[in-house]
């Protein structure tokens, strides 16, 4: 329950920041994607199951609360969270810059996947070059934000874990 509440609070905060503070920060036609960053970081810290759940809930929230085509972001972030969680399992002793690289790569692939799905559904009629540019720029912006937000999200993940009772 505590975990669900905390996750909801984090997702809501990310959505609010995405639509307020970052709403005008559109450089070269793209802006950071906080929900992608959040999903990737949680998947990195908590594993594929948590990554998938965070992605699904966050994606669904973004789709409904921001009146976007329903289900597409949820599908994207579910797969992204799961995929990042799996990758994390195979990396031993990651370097401090690994989360940054993971966020950049994950955001690029995720935004591109999202664009492709929208394109296939006829909701996003733009060129491949444009999609690549937006995906690349979003990846760069998310990578820049990662060192700032990673410690905060890691703390939130730690707090959300159920505390173990140790007996001697």
């Amino acid at each position, binding site marked *: 329950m505590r975990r669900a509440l905390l996750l909801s609070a984090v997702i809501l905060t990310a959505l609010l920041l995405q639509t*307020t503070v970052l709403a005008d920060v559109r450089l070269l036609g793209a802006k950071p994607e906080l929900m992608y960053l959040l999903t990737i970081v949680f998947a990195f810290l908590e594993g594929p*199951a948590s990554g998938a759940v965070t992605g699904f809930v966050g994606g669904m929230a973004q789709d409904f*609360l921001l009146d976007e085509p*329903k289900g597409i972001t949820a599908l994207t972030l*579910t797969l992204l969270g799961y995929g990042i969680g799996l990758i994390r399992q195979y990396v031993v002793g990651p370097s401090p810059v690994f989360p940054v690289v993971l966020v950049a790569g994950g955001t690029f692939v995720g935004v591109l996947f999202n664009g492709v799905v929208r394109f296939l559904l006829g909701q996003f009629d733009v060129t491949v070059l444009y999609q690549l540019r937006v995906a690349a720029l979003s990846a760069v912006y998310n990578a820049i934000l990662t060192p700032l937000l990673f410690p905060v999200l890691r703390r939130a993940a730690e707090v959300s874990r159920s505390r173990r009772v140790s007996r001697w």
Partner: protein
Amino acid sequence: MSLPTRARSTRLLVVTLVSISLVTITLDYRQGESGLLAEAGDVALTVMSPLQEAVSRVTHPIGNFFSTLVRLPSIRRENVDLADRLAGLESQMATTTADAARLAELEALLQLKESFGKKVETTGAQVIANGASNFDWTVTIDKGSSDGIAVDMPVVASAGLVGHVTRVAPDSAVIQLLLDPDSSVAGRLDLSRKTGLLTGEGDQDLRMGLVDTTTAVEPGEQVVTAGYKVPGAAQGLYPPGILIGSVSRVLPDDAALEKYVTVRPAVDFSALDVVLVVLSDGSG
């Protein structure tokens, strides 16, 4: 839970979540704007809007800061463009203002020309240069002997007398201004009708000499050209009745033989633009 079991349950979870997402996409796609999902989206938006508004109110300055930061290059470009446009508009405005002033000057000159009557022959000219020396109070106009201009012809502006022609070339002429210390013109006080000789004092007001001490002169009184003519002997350069200026100072000096009177020229010589050269005063 063993690792394979855990992995299986994770896969099952992901498959379930993906399936729900796909069903949602399909439903949303089929129902369009009027379906249940769209209504749920509307409700969610209604809930979200006040929160967004509240957060936006608090974080607006931060958002503005970042927005300005990322838009800095485009803002700079915009600034340069706007500065260029402003300079263009200012230039256009200055041209318009100058054109309006010129038009007013030309209209006034036309009126002056008409006031001379049909017998007086004149030609308009543009001032193209000022005297190069610090000791010459002259201007050059863009018309000369090919336009019928000759030495000693009077020159007037809409406000009053300017001076007379001292040198002539085919397409230009030099005008000696009233201000020049070598210039002298016979003037008449408007009220007393007494005459005197006005000489230039450079940057200072004109000095009106030969005014009898008994003559009543008041500051502000207008002075016009006297225009004398001695049959068979001499004739003044200027036609009578052209405004020269107004009395600026009268120094009381009972012991002197003549009154000390200064006259401020009616013409603003620093803004001289178009003038009228009197080719013939019609007296034959």
